[in-house]
């Protein structure tokens, strides 16, 4: 319905304007509707300005900046309407250590009301987990679970 789309858009946008500078340690971003007069067909544009940089076409952003921007949008929607659980598979792969730190900090906060399952190769991310599962393939082709409970 048009009204609900508009309301949700407003809520997510306000949240996005908060979450982006938090993950990027500065800068600003917002969502824009491509066609405000047609809420049933309009698209969603993302306008981004990393800290200290000038507003530019999103395509010029770096690999890590693009990933973190997408994460900011996902987290914003999640904060407006949380799911009971959230599964992220190697989302931290393109991020440097500083960004991974802020990413994990937000996940720890959101994990108070939702379960987070993170697949990762990053030792930094492993360090913030409450529970750790190791998957091994000692016998080739056969997955085996090794649980390492941390708390």
């Amino acid at each position, binding site marked *: 319905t048009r009204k609900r789309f508009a309301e949700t858009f407003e809520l997510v946008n306000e949240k996005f304007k908060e979450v982006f500078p938090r993950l990027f340690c500065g800068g600003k971003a917002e969502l824009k509707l491509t066609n405000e007069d047609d809420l049933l067909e309009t698209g969603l544009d993302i306008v981004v300005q990393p800290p200290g940089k000038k507003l530019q076409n999103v395509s010029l952003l770096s690999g890590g900046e693009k*990933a973190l921007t997408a994460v900011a949008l996902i987290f914003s929607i999640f904060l407006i309407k949380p799911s009971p659980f959230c599964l992220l*598979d190697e989302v931290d792969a393109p991020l440097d250590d500083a960004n991974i730190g802020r990413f994990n900090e937000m996940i720890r906060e959101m994990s108070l009301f939702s379960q987070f399952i993170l697949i990762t190769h990053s030792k930094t991310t492993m360090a913030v987990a409450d529970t750790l599962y190791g998957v091994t393939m000692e016998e080739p082709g056969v997955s085996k679970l090794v649980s390492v409970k941390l708390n």
Partner: protein
Amino acid sequence: MKIKRLEISGFKSFVEKASFDFPAGVTAVVGPNGCGKSNVVDAIRWVMGEQSAKNLRGRAMEDVIFGGSESRKPLGMAEVSLVFSTSDGRVPAKYLNYSEIQVTRRLYRDGESEYLLNKTPCRLMDITELFMDTGVGARAYSIIEQGRIGMILMAKPEERRFLIEEAA
């Protein structure tokens, strides 16, 4: 509905039954390339009702059944169970007298499918209804598969609107 436990048996590289307990908070899954981590994500998607083999990196749904290794023969069936706790009370009325809800899906190599709710056979529709009613449905923003995070920025503006629609 919180996830309590995931049981994978015969699904992709999980030949023998593997059981994951999911306590509250943050759970990290680690291991070398190709050991089966993303297969766990596929298992969760699958038991929640995924109908497209492509979304599970396969060509046909049969691809999710353990296909054998150098030392093991292929299996004839894949089974995944997801057990939810109803302790937070957010469940449809008919489940209020249960402390857990177990969703099970099986696929046989001849193509036969089985769905079970608390070990009682049911239809796929009952499972998708349960997930819809409890808000646990595989929303686009609650499962982000490997390599898919980039799609949000690369997508056309019209393709992104579903993110708002799903949260609305």
